[in-house]
C-alpha cells in the first residue's frame, strides 16, 4: 500500500458511459493482485471531498487500468481526465481473490472457474481472469448487463482468448435474461470448479445462492461508501460472519472480496 500522487494517464477509451483509463504507476502495479482496488482523488479542491474507489482492471508494464461507469460527480470528473494529466492514487488496497479457489477438489479439477460480472462489476474480474489464465487455469466469463451497451468489453474479453458468454436483460445481445439465470444454466450444463462475482448487490446475493446450491466455492467483491480506503475511518462496514460470530467488518481492509458464505445478507435486530 502506498501513495502515488502523480500517476500519469497514458491512455483513455470510452464506450458511452463506460470509461477506461491507463495509469502509469510502477510500484502500485507491481504489488497489485486481482480484487484489490485504488482510491483515486478526482479533484484537488473539496468538491468532491473524498477519494473514489476503483478495482484494478488490468496491469501491464508498470501500468494499471481502471474501468468505470459514470455514476455521479466524481466519476464524471474522472471521465474528463486526459492522457498526459496525472492522478493521485493510493493502492493497492484490500485483500484480493483466492486464485486457486476450488482447485483442490478432485471432482472438479480441470473444470473452469466461472467469473460472473454484472455491468461495471466486470472491472476487477478482467484482471482476475487474466491472472488465472496465466496460472494455467481454465476460465469462463459470464458477462451481463441491462442492454448491449452495458457490456462494452465483450469484444475485448473475447479477443483475449477466453471463453465468454454474454447476457442482456433486454435480450439485445447474447443470452436473454439475467446473468444469474445464465449462471444457473451453465452450472446445470457442465461442471465448474468455483464461482467469482462482482456486480450489483441483488445479483451477488443470487450468485451466492446458486453457487451454494451447486456446492461450489464462491467469492464476491462487495462495495460500500468509503471514507479512506485504508482502514482508518470505519465507514465502509458490511455484516460478515467470522469464526461463527457476526460483526461489522471493514470491507476496505478485510475485503472487498469475501467468501460468499461469510456475507450476511439480512441483518436481524
Amino acid at each position: 500500500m502506498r501513495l502515488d500522487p502523480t500517476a500519469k494517464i497514458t491512455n483513455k477509451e470510452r464506450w458511452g458511459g463506460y470509461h477506461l483509463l491507463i495509469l502509469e504507476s510502477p510500484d502500485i502495479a507491481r504489488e497489485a493482485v486481482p480484487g484489490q482496488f485504488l482510491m483515486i482523488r478526482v479533484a484537488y479542491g473539496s468538491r468532491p471531498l473524498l477519494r473514489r474507489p476503483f478495482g484494478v482492471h488490468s496491469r501491464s508494464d508498470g501500468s494499471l487500468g481502471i474501468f468505470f461507469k459514470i455514476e455521479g460527480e466524481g466519476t464524471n470528473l474522472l471521465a474528463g481526465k486526459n492522457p498526459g494529466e496525472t492522478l493521485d492514487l493510493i493502492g493497492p488496497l484490500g485483500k484480493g481473490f483466492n486464485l486457486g479457489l476450488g482447485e483442490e477438489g478432485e471432482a472438479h479439477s480441470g473444470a473452469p472457474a466461472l467469473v460472473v460480472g454484472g455491468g461495471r462489476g466486470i472491472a476487477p474480474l478482467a484482471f482476475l481472469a487474466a491472472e488465472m489464465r496465466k496460472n494455467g487455469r481454465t476460465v469462463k466469463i459470464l458477462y451481463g448487463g441491462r442492454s448491449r451497451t452495458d457490456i462494452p468489453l465483450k469484444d475485448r474479453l473475447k479477443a483475449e482468448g477466453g471463453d465468454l458468454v454474454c447476457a442482456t436483460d433486454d435480450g439485445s445481445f447474447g443470452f436473454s435474461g439475467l446473468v444469474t439465470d445464465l449462471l444457473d444454466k451453465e452450472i446445470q450444463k457442465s461442471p465448474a470448479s468455483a464461482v467469482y462475482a462482482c456486480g450489483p448487490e441483488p445479483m451477488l446475493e443470487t450468485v451466492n445462492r446458486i453457487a451454494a446450491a451447486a456446492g461450489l466455492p464462491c467469492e464476491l467483491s462487495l462495495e460500500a461508501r468509503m471514507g479512506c480506503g485504508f482502514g482508518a475511518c470505519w465507514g465502509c462496514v458490511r455484516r460478515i460472519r467470522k469464526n461463527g460470530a457476526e460483526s461489522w467488518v471493514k470491507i476496505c481492509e478485510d475485503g472487498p472480496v469475501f467468501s460468499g458464505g461469510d456475507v450476511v445478507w439480512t441483518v436481524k435486530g
Partner: protein
Amino acid sequence: MTVRSAVDLSVDLGFLRLKNPVLAASGTFGYGPEFEPFLDPGRLGGFVVKGLHFDPRPGNPPPRLAETPSGLINAVGLQGVGVASFCEKTLPRLRGYKTAVIVNVCGADTEEYVRVVEYLDGHEGIAAYELNISCPNVKAGGACPAQSPAATRKVVAAVKKRSRRPVITKLSPNVTDVAAVAAAAEEAGTDAVSLVNTFLAMAVDVETRRPKVANVYGGLSGPAIRPIALRMVHQTASRVRIPVIGLGGIATASDALEFLIAGARAVQVGTAGLVDPRAALDIIDGLEEYCRRHSLQRLSEICGTIDVR
C-alpha cells in the same frame, strides 16, 4: 547551500510539550498504525487515538458515511476494540512512535469514563486523555454531556479526581454557547479543551426517500464546518485561560494558521487526513514556511494574536 535558521514550531500546553502544534484528530487516524504506510508518526505534534469505550462496541449499521458539499457526514457509532485489546495489541506499537499519543476516552455514563481512564492509567505510553463527551452518534438525537455545562462539569470533575494524566475535554459544537461549556470544564479542572467535534447533520437520498446514513443523523466534518468551528474556537479562547486546541475542517497550513491566530494553541486535522493521509505533514511544512516568510523565530508567537480592533 543556503543555511536556514531553525524555526521553532514547538508549543507548550503547560502540561505537555509538543514538537509542533499539529495533531491528528480522533477517529480519522484509526489507532495509529493505519497511517504507517504514508508517514512517520514521529513528525506529528501528536495524534489522538480513535475513541475507546471500556468494552468492545459493535458500532452502527451501514451506510455510515455520506458526502455533502465539502463535507462528510459520519455515523460510525464508535465501533471499537475496547481498552483491554487496545492496551495489549496496539499500545506497545504506539510506544515506538516519537510523538505524543493522546487517547480519546468515551463512556455511556460518568462511571464508564472513569473506568476507562483508570484502566489506561495502568499502562505506559500515553501523554494525555481527550475526553470525548461530544460524540453525536451514540445516543438517539445526538445527546451528549458536552451539551450542558452541568453534565460537563460532572464528567470532567469525576475523571480529574482519578486520572494521573492530563485531561483535554473535547467539546460539542451542537450548543448555543460553547464558551460557557468550556468555562464549566475549566472550573471542573480540565487541563485543556479541544473543539469542535462534528455538527449533528442529515442528508436524504431523494430517489429512495431514505436518510443517507442509516442512523438518520450523523456528524458533519470537513471544510464545510471550518468557519463555524473557527468562530467557536475564537469565542472559547476569549473566555478561558486553559489552552484551546482547535479543529474542524483544517486541510491546509493557512487553515491551521486561522485557528492559531484566533487563539488556538494547537490544532487537529481530521477528515483532511482521510483524503490525503499526508495532509498533517504538509501543514507542518507550510507552518514552517509561513514563519520564515514572516520572520518568526517561534510559531507560538502568533497564537491568539488576532487583531479585532
